[in-house]
């Protein structure tokens, strides 16, 4: 991985820097010894590791502001960090950079049921937001499968999604306001607990900016009343084309499922072998469609989806009759990643989005690439919004397979772009897809994005080396590699 060259002059001043930071964040908020820092040496993209210069864990906005002002004065790079679950290396440290961990901003400040929103520190986990309001019948809709670990600050930085985003929108559609600190120490507020911006929609731009524009110190998001009922359907198809057609027809009929997930044959078989959810093994594609809302509506829509599925040639249609059955339908899908981890020593997770209708041809293209590279691939798919997670299977111990897996992965993303899709649907560009950006954007496009970056961070000190291709970057980059099922977050479900 090619990162900006560490600045020796900064490395030489390390002791002074640590001391200065200790003055700003007293107590045990500065971690400078190797053992303590090693926790921070990578994020969810574990193939890449780098010891930071030092880790700072501020507790107050003033401390964040002072740290950033100090770093600007000293020309120090800063890498913001939440829980470190990024799958694209967004929180990968720099040898000459300060990791600014936001884990101590873990308090919920205000629950405002009258305005149906919640204000919290960026270090609060995604699930903790829902936990805080579920007693009153509310929840926070975007649900990345890492939700027990990932922070709302990280969600804002990555514009994270989850199964429910098909119906309820991504982070960006649920965010009302935030407070953030710019690299020069300025504290700004964007939005609040009202809708839309009075001036430029900077809130929208900061969302998904991967920690390159500012450090988020407070977040206000909408909460939604929990729907009274939810049911799921398990639908098997003899061909992936039929499954794709069914997805299109469901969407076009006006039904917006709370979730619509697809698995291909290798993924189905891996899941069934792993946790025996009762998936059919004689189908080429499996759909799980969840509907939520008032009971009457859910029952009606279940009937409509059944009819559409049957008319599109489904070989199996089962609707959940109770909560246990609904959970059982989901169990295999939720275990798809670890299940795939069982059938191959390593897998590499991709995250492209394509126009829904191009699914059959993209699956065919992936199958051809699979032959070309001599590596198997299992596909799981947020089908409703076209977000594909191909899992490339390989063995890192076999000579050349890692490189082949990476080349295969890059070709899949190129294919996504070629059919009118994009490089990343929810995992972010980070360092992983940084050098593929020219596949989608011209030099002019990237130049404009870089100027926007400079508007927030003129010296380019905030999270450098991410998102934008380095001038002399090599073509092939590292990815999400999982060896022997040993992921960095084994306890988290993966969608």
């Amino acid at each position: 991985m090619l990162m900006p060259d560490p600045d020796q002059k900064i490395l030489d001043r390390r002791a002074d820097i640590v001391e200065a930071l200790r003055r700003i964040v007293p107590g045990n908020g500065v971690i400078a010894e190797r053992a303590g820092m090693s926790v921070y040496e990578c994020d969810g993209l574990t193939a890449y590791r780098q010891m930071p210069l030092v880790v700072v864990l501020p507790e107050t906005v003033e401390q964040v502001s002072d740290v950033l002002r100090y770093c600007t004065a000293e020309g120090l790079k800063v890498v913001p960090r939440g829980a470190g679950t990024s799958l694209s290396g967004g929180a990968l440290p720099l040898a000459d950079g300060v990791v600014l961990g936001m884990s101590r901003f873990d308090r919920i400040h205000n629950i405002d049921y009258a305005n149906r929103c919640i204000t919290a520190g960026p270090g609060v986990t995604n699930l903790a937001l829902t936990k805080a309001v579920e007693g009153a019948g509310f929840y926070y809709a975007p649900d990345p499968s890492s939700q027990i670990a990932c922070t709302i600050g990280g969600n804002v930085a990555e514009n994270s999604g989850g199964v429910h985003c098909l119906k309820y929108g991504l982070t960006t559609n649920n965010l009302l306001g935030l407070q953030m600190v710019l690299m020069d120490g300025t504290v700004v507020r964007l939005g609040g607990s009202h809708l839309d911006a009075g001036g430029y929609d900077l809130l929208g731009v900061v969302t998904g900016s991967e920690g390159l524009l500012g450090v988020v110190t407070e977040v206000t998001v909408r909460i939604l009343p929990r729907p009274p009922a939810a049911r799921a359907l398990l639908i098997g198809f003899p061909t992936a084309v039929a499954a794709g057609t069914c997805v299109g027809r469901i969407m076009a009929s006006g039904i917006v499922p709370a979730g619509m997930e697809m698995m291909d044959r290798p993924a189905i078989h891996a899941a069934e072998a792993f946790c025996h959810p009762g998936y059919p093994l004689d189908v080429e594609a499996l759909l799980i469609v969840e509907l939520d809302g008032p009971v009457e509506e859910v029952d009606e829509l279940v009937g409509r989806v059944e009819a559409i599925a049957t008319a599109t040639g489904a070989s199996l249609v089962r609707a959940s009759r109770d909560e246990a059955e609904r959970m059982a339908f989901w169990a295999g899908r939720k275990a798809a990643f670890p299940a795939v981890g069982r059938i191959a020593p390593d897998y590499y997770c991709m995250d492209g989005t394509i126009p829904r209708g191009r699914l059959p041809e993209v699956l065919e293209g992936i199958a051809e690439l699979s032959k070309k590279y001599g590596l198997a691939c299992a596909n799981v798919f947020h089908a409703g919004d076209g977000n594909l997670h191909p899992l490339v299977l390989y063995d890192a111990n076999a000579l050349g397979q890692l490189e082949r897996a990476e080349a295969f992965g890059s070709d899949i993303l190129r294919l996504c772009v070629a059919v009118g899709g994009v490089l990343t649907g929810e995992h972010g560009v980070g360092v992983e897809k940084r050098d593929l950006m020219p596949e989608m954007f011209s030099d002019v496009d990237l130049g404009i994005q870089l100027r926007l970056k400079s508007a927030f961070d003129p010296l380019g000190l905030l999270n450098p080396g991410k998102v934008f291709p380095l001038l002399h970057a090599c073509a092939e980059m590292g990815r999400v590699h999982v060896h022997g099922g040993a992921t960095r977050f084994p306890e988290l479900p993966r969608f």
Partner: protein
Amino acid sequence: MATTLHTPANVAELADLLRQASATGQTASVTGGGTKAALGRPVVPDLDIHLDAFAGVVSFEPEEMVLVAGAATRMARIEALLAEANQMLAFEPPDWATMWGAPARRATLGGTVACNLSGSRRIKAGAARDHLLGLDGVTGAGEVFKAGGRVVKNVTGYDLCKLFAGSFGTLAVATRLVLRTVPRPEVAETLVFASADDASGIDLLGQAAASPMEPSGLAHLPAGIGGMRLARTLVRLEGTPVSVAARVASLGRLGKLIQRLDGPGAAPLWADLGTGALVAEGGGDLWRLSLPPSGGAGAAAQIAAAIPGARHVFDWAGGLIWLAVPAAAPGYATVMQAASIRAAVGDHGGGHATLVRASAEVRGTVAPFAPEDAGLALLAARVKQAFDPSAVLEPGRMVAGR
């Protein structure tokens, strides 16, 4: 110097025009349908660039639910095309032209998105910002660029689409936009409740919003609005007949139900809520306030006490106030009016107040867009510079000197 009219035939000509303007220090305004020329601070640009050449639907794929159209495509044309496929734009784009007395059905896609418009369905479905998937455009410096893509789930690079939506033509000129479309709901029903006053009406709306019944419109019309003697509170439900019936049964018990309107029956009312027509038609200066819903009634009461003759309606469960105030003499009186309106928003949870209709003198005196605090203003100025380094695109339209 008089404004000169330009109608570039293609993107290259448009880029040339902007490059030249950048080089010679000229300013330019961009006109789609010309319906919103009186929005924002009055500016007299050197060039008026008409986007007529960028009209027309490029593609509409009902199965993908994606529409690609030129910036100057009329909204009326788009709505008709989508309706043929039984689809629509979910954010319920209002036709603001009529608020200035301009002819209806002339607004364009580019203008609608650049102003980040939305109607009553905003609370459930989002605003224009939430439905713009991608765009091709030209910066103030004359650079041809693209942003976003054609798919909903996309985190590749910065979300410049959000920035374009709500930039009022001051950052870049979009030539082609990509929007997501959605199927039309099969039926809609509007429940009309009698409410004693603003506070109890908004309280009812809050209960509906906190229910899992997914209302797609939550408005309150004080007594006297729309020629009605009594205050009315509106709850709109959309979906399949079975679902709407179930939800009507559930929410119908929230208050004193006096009427049920079907989709077509209530459509004109919701359209008028989108444009503020219910208060705008009585004349005067027109404001649009966005604030936390629970602050709506209090803010409106504070304004009513400070400005005799003020009229208001609420949308977005109380979070949107359309406010008409008697036009005061430009100068001290209007500045004081604006200050008391903005103070009311500030005192009731914060948000912003935009002066959408007033004479040019008033718009030149009172900041039509909510003033930003110093840090934010500096940041916004730098963002403007990033897209439009020579300040070609309507400098001063949103904020004086920017």
